[in-house]
């Protein structure tokens, strides 16, 4: 067991997979010699050398396109898109190429790759470097979409993503890079498509993802301490495949559902989950599900403004308390 940061877990996860499989290569902007703009890939270049760990030009389309061509012909590339906002400049690969080639060719081609990208707010970078865009990817048939919230999950889910035969978009949260967590020694391998109940409870289910997970956990502690409301906190972890069984099971127990989403409101991941729960477990619910999201606006830069729009522990506490008391 060791305590490491989420940032160091990224490098450890990549190193674990590169060491076991020579088909894994890694490239992106400033990722090799500099170790990444978030320092999440420090040491990989030194450990695996310039053939396997490469700095690329600022060419997001070439990065993702090359990852696809390498994946189709036998490698298992990991490509980095520095900020997830930049997915917009290479969206063709995410929307049209990776996820469609196997289907269009009636199963002839494969695309086993991972796109890692820094997602989310908290760094005060403003509207083009702070977005949570996991929902941009969730809506596309043929992709898998993962967003870990802890160092151990980073390693385990990254390993699962690399070994998965489908294209996986792996969202790392920028505001979690410095967060520490306990990580066992040796190889760590998790399973895509599994949510995790982090805190059992009986009065309400709170679903959260990435940075919203620690906030939901803190809110659950406050709700228990101050109001004796016992919340179950579920880390969704994987948007596609989606572990609806764990979610439906939790709602079946608590009869209340809250989602805590960093993405702007319209078509956020919680909307899909709420619709599933309402369609399939309507009579389990004691009250309408409530979505706690960032409002539908571009993100502002200033501390005071950004802090107002992201779901906070206080907002979660207030929303759950009011809903349960009404």
């Amino acid at each position, binding site marked *: 067991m060791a305590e490491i940061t989420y940032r160091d877990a990224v490098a450890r996860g990549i190193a674990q997979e590169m060491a076991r499989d020579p088909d894994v*290569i890694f490239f992106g902007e400033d990722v090799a010699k500099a170790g990444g703009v978030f320092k999440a890939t420090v040491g990989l270049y030194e450990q695996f050398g310039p*053939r*396997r760990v490469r700095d*690329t*030009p600022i*060419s997001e*389309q*070439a*990065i*993702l*396109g*090359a*990852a*696809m*061509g*390498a*994946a*189709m*012909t*036998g*490698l298992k*590339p990991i490509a980095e898109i520095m900020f997830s906002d930049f997915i917009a400049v290479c969206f*063709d*690969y995410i929307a*049209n*190429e990776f996820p469609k*080639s*196997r*289907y*269009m*060719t*009636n*199963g*002839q*081609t*494969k695309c*086993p790759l991972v796109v890692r990208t820094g997602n989310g707010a908290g760094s005060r970078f403003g509207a083009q470097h702070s977005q949570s865009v996991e929902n941009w990817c969730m809506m596309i*048939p*043929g992709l*898998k979409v993962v967003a870990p919230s802890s160092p151990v999950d980073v390693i385990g889910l990254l390993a699962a993503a690399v070994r*998965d*035969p*489908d294209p996986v978009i792996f969202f790392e949260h920028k505001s979690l890079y410095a967060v520490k967590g306990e990580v066992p020694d040796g190889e760590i391998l998790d399973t895509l*498509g599994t949510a995790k109940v982090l805190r059992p409870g009986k009065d309400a289910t709170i679903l959260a993802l990435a940075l919203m997970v620690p906030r939901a956990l803190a809110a659950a502690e406050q709700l228990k301490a101050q109001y004796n409301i016992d919340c179950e906190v579920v880390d969704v972890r994987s948007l*596609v*495949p*989606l*572990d*609806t*069984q764990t979610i439906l099971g939790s709602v079946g127990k608590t009869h209340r559902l809250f989602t805590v989403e960093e993405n702007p409101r319209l078509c956020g991941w919680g909307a899909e989950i709420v619709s*599933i729960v309402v369609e399939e477990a309507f009579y389990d619910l004691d009250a309408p599900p409530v979505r706690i999201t960032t409002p539908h606006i571009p993100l502002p830069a200033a501390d005071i403004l950004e802090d107002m729009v992201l779901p906070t522990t206080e907002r979660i506490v207030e929303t759950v308390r009011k809903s349960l008391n009404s």
Partner: protein
Amino acid sequence: MSNSPGLALAGQPGVNDDIGEETRLKLYHSQVVIREAEQRAFDLFLQNLVKGTSHLSLGQEAIAAGFGVAMQKGDLTFATYRGHAHTLARGVPVEKMLGELMQRDNGLMRGKGGSMHLASEEHGVMGSYAIIGAHLPIACGAALRAQYRGDKDVSVCFFGDGTTNIGAFHEALNFAAIWKLPVVFVCENNLYMEYTPISEVTAVEHPAADRASAYGLPRIVIDGNDADVVYREAQKAFAKARAGDGPSLIECMTYRHSGHSRADPAKYRPEGELERWKEKDPIKVYRARLKQFGISDEAVKKIDAEVRKMVDEATEACKAAPEPSTDILFTDVYADGGWAWRN
């Protein structure tokens, strides 16, 4: 921008005998297969038997054939929506291609892809891509794999003149150049995008070749209607790629005889332009070449008749083939063969 054939072409139709009779017959055969199959696709469209859209390579056969014959087993083709020719040039049966256009169960992808997405991995056809420019970076990735593993295959990426103005073209060329990837970029300059002449929207005369220097590559413009010229240039580029000396960008001057797609009557062509280019029809050019090298009319006619018969048989087989089974609707979204996005 020169609209007349033969101007400003670097390569000249060779008269030396480096190619030889056997290869010349292959080049001719491949061009005739493409011509007959594409013409048949057009006829079937008029009979409402080809559904959706289709983009023909009538008039551009020499490029697909020249590269196709020069490619070795294991080399990889990346084509566009105008990719029937490049698919056939790797040996994919006409029936499989026509079946896909007719959306029948015997099609290459059993109707799941359609005319714009022909692929046949077993023949090295790694897909036909319908988003302009997308496959240039993908070809780079396949070439990166070859370089990384020490494989000797070359990735060949075909695209149009219009594709040189999209970002992915420039990103891919730079990528391939900095890493010396074994990839060959083949620009088929047929003078038009969909309906707009490329010269009206491009800052340089030769949309691909005039940009080559920006990526440290030589400027190459060839006569794309002469299969010998294309074949020779392909051989050079492949040798360079296999030797580890990096990518090539080859601009082939050509002209499409049909409209952009099945819906296009091509009214925008200046008068006489099509007729001038038909003088340089690649099949016509090549028949004269075969004659020049003493290959008999009978041998040529025999190839023509055999190909015609083969395409006739393929057509009948496609007409008789059933529509795809609806069982395939939900297969192969994910690698497990299914489409489950939830448990």
